[in-house]
């Protein structure tokens, strides 16, 4: 439930970890951190130091859409079947989610809850989750959220903004309000800071869905695909990529079996393979084009919104620096000539 009257609160820097500690006792709390390999991502809170200085390399997507999950099973001995024993239960709180990622969750909600008629695994996690958004202080180096209309958070429960002595907080929903306990938060009259983000990258989005589609055979696809390694770094870092494949697994000799689904990517050769071993997108060019067009053309044409929130992760993750904005802007530019 949205709150009618939004109040501002403040929490001191020193109290933050105590607050998180208290949240993590009752729920699964995930927070942005830097892992051992140096990548920034979301992990379960265990008192570790947080990464709050910018957008993470990986979003919190895997907590809503695990890379691999068992869906249902058959047991031979008891002649029974059922939905996975690991069916998601319990509350998930995601702390420090940036504006772009709240829009990405929104996009996944649209697909898994609305279009797919309530995918039970996704929706069990999502409906049982609380999003604590964190306002960006500076625009990140490769993002273009402003162009995609995603620089203000949406669908979150609490909004935080950092300031020198701590954080200023706003509960947006009742659910969020219950978490702002008086033990850590004090009411304040201070206004909530308005972000003024100047993204370094931009994308001209007017008519982009039609223009990209009309330029299906633009030479840029071939040119960029020559460099592309089909490594899937772009789709696997993207917070809105949702493709999965499913596979069956047998317990050794017992006749028990289960079906699970795991992440898939349109950059893989076998992604578009159908019975008879026909592959619809054998060329790298067609796979790269699928990525860009799915994000900036097809989805908008069919469902009214873009599937890209402008987070810039695909640009940062690409080892050969293929840039979705460069491709799209080039085609937009040529279309306007």
């Amino acid at each position, binding site marked *: 439930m949205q709150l009618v009257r939004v109040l501002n609160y403040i929490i001191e820097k020193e109290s933050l970890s105590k607050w998180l500690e208290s949240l993590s006792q009752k729920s699964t709390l995930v927070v942005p951190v830097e892992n051992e390999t140096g990548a920034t991502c979301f992990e379960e809170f265990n008192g570790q130091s947080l990464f709050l200085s910018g957008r993470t390399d990986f979003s919190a997507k895997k907590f809503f859409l695990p890379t691999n999950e068992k869906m249902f099973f058959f047991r031979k001995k008891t002649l029974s079947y059922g939905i996975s024993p690991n*069916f998601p239960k319990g509350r998930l709180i995601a702390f420090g989610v940036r504006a772009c990622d709240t829009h990405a969750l929104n996009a996944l909600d649209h697909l898994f809850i609305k279009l797919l008629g309530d995918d039970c695994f996704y929706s069990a996690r999502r409906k049982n989750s609380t999003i604590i958004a964190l306002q960006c202080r500076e625009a990140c180096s490769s993002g273009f959220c402003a162009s995609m209309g995603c620089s203000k958070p949406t669908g979150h429960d609490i909004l935080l903004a950092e300031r020198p002595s701590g954080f200023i907080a706003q509960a947006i929903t009742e659910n969020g309000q219950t978490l702002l306990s008086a033990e850590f938060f004090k009411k304040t009259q201070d206004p909530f800071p308005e972000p003024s983000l100047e993204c370094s990258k931009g994308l001209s989005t007017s008519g982009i869905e039609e223009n990209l589609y009309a330029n299906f055979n633009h030479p840029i696809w071939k040119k960029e695909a020559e460099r592309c390694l089909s490594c*899937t770094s772009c789709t*696997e870092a993207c917070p809105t990529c949702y493709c999965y494949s499913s596979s069956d697994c047998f317990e050794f000799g017992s006749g028990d079996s289960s079906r699970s689904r795991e992440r898939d990517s349109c950059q893989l050769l076998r992604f578009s393979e159908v019975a008879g071993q026909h592959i619809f997108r054998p060329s790298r060019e067609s796979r790269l084009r699928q990525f860009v067009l799915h994000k900036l053309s097809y989805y908008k044409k069919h469902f009214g919104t873009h599937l890209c929130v402008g987070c810039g992760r695909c640009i940062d993750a690409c080892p050969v620096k293929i840039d979705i904005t460069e491709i799209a802007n080039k085609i937009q530019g040529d279309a306007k000539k």
Partner: protein
Amino acid sequence: MPKKKRAGAGQKPIPKKKHSAAGKEIPMPKKKLKIGFFSLTCCEGCELAVLDLEERLLKALNYIEIADSRLLLEKPLSKKLDIAFVEGSVISKHDLDSLHSIRERSSFLVALGACATIAGIPGIRNSLPDYLQDKIKRNQIKPMKEKAFPISAFVKVDFLLQGCSINEEEFLTFLNRFLHGKTTRLEQIPVCFECKHRQNSCLLLKGIACLGPVTYAGCNALCPSENAQCIGCRGFTDDANFTALDSLFKEIGLSKEERHNLFTYFNQLPEELKEFAKENSGELPNQLKELAGENPKKKIDLEALK
């Protein structure tokens, strides 16, 4: 705590009428599958990896029988085998003779590990300079071929289990599927796919050469997860874009020699495989054609390294 009912969750009995097979045994092979392990030139690490399965291997012994293994048995228990797992490369006449006889004895032959699938470590000698080749020849203890080759160069191989050493889970999955009458296939998925799922920071972005984008996944990105470059032990995918990766290595600052060494650490260059063909029958066996990029559907092109 009172149990809450959740739509769709929990166990439901299968209605007996509709499933007449309910309660009957699922047909498993009457006799146990006879399998054998064989080692050509290698360290025998892959067979050890299988033994590492410990209790799970013992459980599997309800369905399989190890009928030949130098490591485990005093003498073979059967001549005919359902599956032969062969590790190691062919580098001597002795290796070649053993390989042919193993093939004759078995219905299904699986190449086990990097040495057998892509020539792996023994294959390093293939691209050594002449003076080192001579040194090897002077010190050899048994008659050797000039080069080491994957076993697919000589006999029909039905499946590859890759890696140095193999992934035990993959071995078990293969066996399990085989028992259920299912085939397994190589998925054209690069190591990067699994590396991203482990949320590793990318070595290539830090200026460290990594073969992840061109190498078969299945190891759960073992090396990059420990901050070490992937050196291609699981073999190159059909979908590999060598030219692009090679230019990236050049940009990172690798010399021609360094690039050559990395690409040939475990794998063989197409032209070396072609040379082999010339020395022998003049024609490349089908499975080597794929390794050598001669299959028009799967372009493997190492132009830049020539």
